[in-house]
């Protein structure tokens, strides 16, 4: 690429992080920020130890325990021995390798993709990795952020770099104004429904258009979070005033003159007019309805006003058989109205929708109402600071009075590694990101939706169009 060629946001970040490029296209890129959690890191630290290697830049690394932590009565410790060992291992490893660590009793503890932005560790124009696919969340800040495996974690710990090949640019613009009751979650679900879970493979998706740029940082994070569910390597949104306002004053964000210098640089990051994308899609915001998944893949999604689709109408034989399998697992039959499906569990939380704005949306729906008989509805804040903020706004009281179960922060029933899980056959309205078989507990059935929609389901005991409640 010659100087003067218009560049995308992704091109700019990529090129500014090249340490070395080989003739065959393999690139060594520098990593600015590395987030670490207890599940995918133990074997990486062990590898360092076996080879007598050190962490090259502990100052660019931040560790937290989130996947296994209990969300209830934490003082009692962790009952499950293996979960406890994983967290103790992280505590030991971070002490030995001098990596900053937010322990379970630290108010800053929380889901790794919530605490990074919250602390200002996540910054525009940076490369961010974590041994977790939802690292794409941080792309909301105009950072190139993606999930890596444990061998790559070890590589980053040892060298602060990563071997990568350049991804392609895909631009998805959502234009116009979102209708009332329709959120960032609905936008991203409808995009995944359109392009499929492999639609973004090999690409970095830049989300654009006024419906995206009008979102808060929370909403932007929800969108980028699920870019991985569209198969993308990462999601990206150009940094702007909303981004800067969110970051300013955060503990790890630059201060004073450094802030001025950083902000000036960040303003140069958005894609240049005329920059080339390998693929471009546009969607009209006003045609998006609240979305709900019916199957066992995030692409199995329909508007809440719809019905469970019929496998006989599938375009391919492979799709038809996987639909039949999904419906069997979900205990649903074709033609059932989504709104006739009842739920026993509601899970509000996760790195997709566990931020303050999400809790506010739920409280707004819940205020003065009651959770339906026979429904257990959990609200799990994404971090200790989200919890503190919600409590200072009195949201916990509103939720508790309405019959919601207000918990301690963590990943919780997003992947059911701690004690929070669905029982076989139980059906859950969930604000998380994956409805895979067994994701929320063996045999559990997940319907993904927005926080307000999940709150509405809690109140009525069935999947409900939020627009009927507001």
């Amino acid at each position, binding site marked *: 690429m010659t100087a003067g060629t218009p560049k995308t946001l992704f091109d700019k970040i990529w090129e500014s992080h090249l340490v070395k490029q080989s003739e065959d296209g393999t690139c060594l890129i520098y990593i600015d920020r590395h987030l670490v959690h207890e599940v995918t890191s*133990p074997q990486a630290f062990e590898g360092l130890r076996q080879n007598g290697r050190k962490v090259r830049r502990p100052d660019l690394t931040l560790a937290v325990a989130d996947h296994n932590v209990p969300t209830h009565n934490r003082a009692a410790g962790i009952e499950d021995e293996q979960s406890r060992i994983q967290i103790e291992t992280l505590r030991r490893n971070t002490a030995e390798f001098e990596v900053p660590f937010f322990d379970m009793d630290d108010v800053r503890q929380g889901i790794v993709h919530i605490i990074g932005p919250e602390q200002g560790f996540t910054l525009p124009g940076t490369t961010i990795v974590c041994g977790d696919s939802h690292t794409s969340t941080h792309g909301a800040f105009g950072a190139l952020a993606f999930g890596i495996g444990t061998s790559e974690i070890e590589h980053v710990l040892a060298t602060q770099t990563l071997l990568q090949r350049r991804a392609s640019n895909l631009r998805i613009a959502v234009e116009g104004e979102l209708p009332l009751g329709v959120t960032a979650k609905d936008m991203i679900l409808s995009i995944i429904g359109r392009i499929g879970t492999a639609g973004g493979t090999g690409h970095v998706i830049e989300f654009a258009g006024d419906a995206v740029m009008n979102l808060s940082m929370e909403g932007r994070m929800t969108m980028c979070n699920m870019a991985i569910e569209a198969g993308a390597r990462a999601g990206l949104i150009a940094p702007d005033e909303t981004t800067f306002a969110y970051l300013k004053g955060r503990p790890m964000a630059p201060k004073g003159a450094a802030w001025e210098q950083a902000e000036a640089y960040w303003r140069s990051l958005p894609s240049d007019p005329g920059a080339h994308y390998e693929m471009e899609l546009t969607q009209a915001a006003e045609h998006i309805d609240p979305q709900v998944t019916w199957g066992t893949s995030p692409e199995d999604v329909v508007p809440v006003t719809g019905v469970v689709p019929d496998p006989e109408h599938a375009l391919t034989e492979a799709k038809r058989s996987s639909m039949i399998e999904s419906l069997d697992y979900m205990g649903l039959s074709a033609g059932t109205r989504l709104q006739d499906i009842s739920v026993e569990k509601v899970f509000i939380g996760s790195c997709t929708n566990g931020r303050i704005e999400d809790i506010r949306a739920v409280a707004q729906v819940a205020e003065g109402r009651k959770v339906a008989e026979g429904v257990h509805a959990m609200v799990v804040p994404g971090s200790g600071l989200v919890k503190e903020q919600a409590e200072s706004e009195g949201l916990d009281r509103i939720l508790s009075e309405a019959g919601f179960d207000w918990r301690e922060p963590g990943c919780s029933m997003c992947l059911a590694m701690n004690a929070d899980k669905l029982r076989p056959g139980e059906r859950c309205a969930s604000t998380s990101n994956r409805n895979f078989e067994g994701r929320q507990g063996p045999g559990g059935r997940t319907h993904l939706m927005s926080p307000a929609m999940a709150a509405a389901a809690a109140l009525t005991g069935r999947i409900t169009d939020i627009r009927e409640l507001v």
Partner: protein
Amino acid sequence: MDKFTSVTGIAASLPLANIDTDMIIPARYLKTIKRTGLAEGLFANLRTDKDGNPKDFVLNDPPYDKAEILVTGENFGCGSSREHAPWALLDAGIKVIISTSFADIFYNNCFKNGILPITLPAHIVEQLHDDATRGSNARITVNLENQTVAGPDGGSVTFEIDPFRKHCLLNGLDDIGLTMGEVEKIDDYESKRKLSQPWL
């Protein structure tokens, strides 16, 4: 990492599309702090029912319980970044996975563990699914040096692979060791970064 040259072995067919990493190894098996012993969790929810009794699943029955090659549906390995997925496959003796497409992170993770993921066009994968259902005749030979896959009838096709990754697999090379050799370039980059972006 062991060197990968060629494999001749039983191939098993798993034609489902979008097999995600939660299916390959459910989260409850991720609580280990080791890389080994994960075969127990491999396809756990497909292999056994909730009481632990074996289900009708291809890898449960001979000769496929000894499979070294998996022929799968499209978008194999989508979902989480867990390297436990390739670890579990490797622990169960799987060395090659053939599909029309793979999810990015999973694809990457395979190479770090000496597993060869092979992407081939749909009509060839379909033929290999066929080959992989021939019981004790379901033997496929994969040769990395020549980049070929040969079915039981002898017909062989070639596949594409990134030369750097091929080189690392063939020689069992550890990426980290290689990158450590570039330490001067990394030092250089860091000093430049310190000047241009001091806030980092």
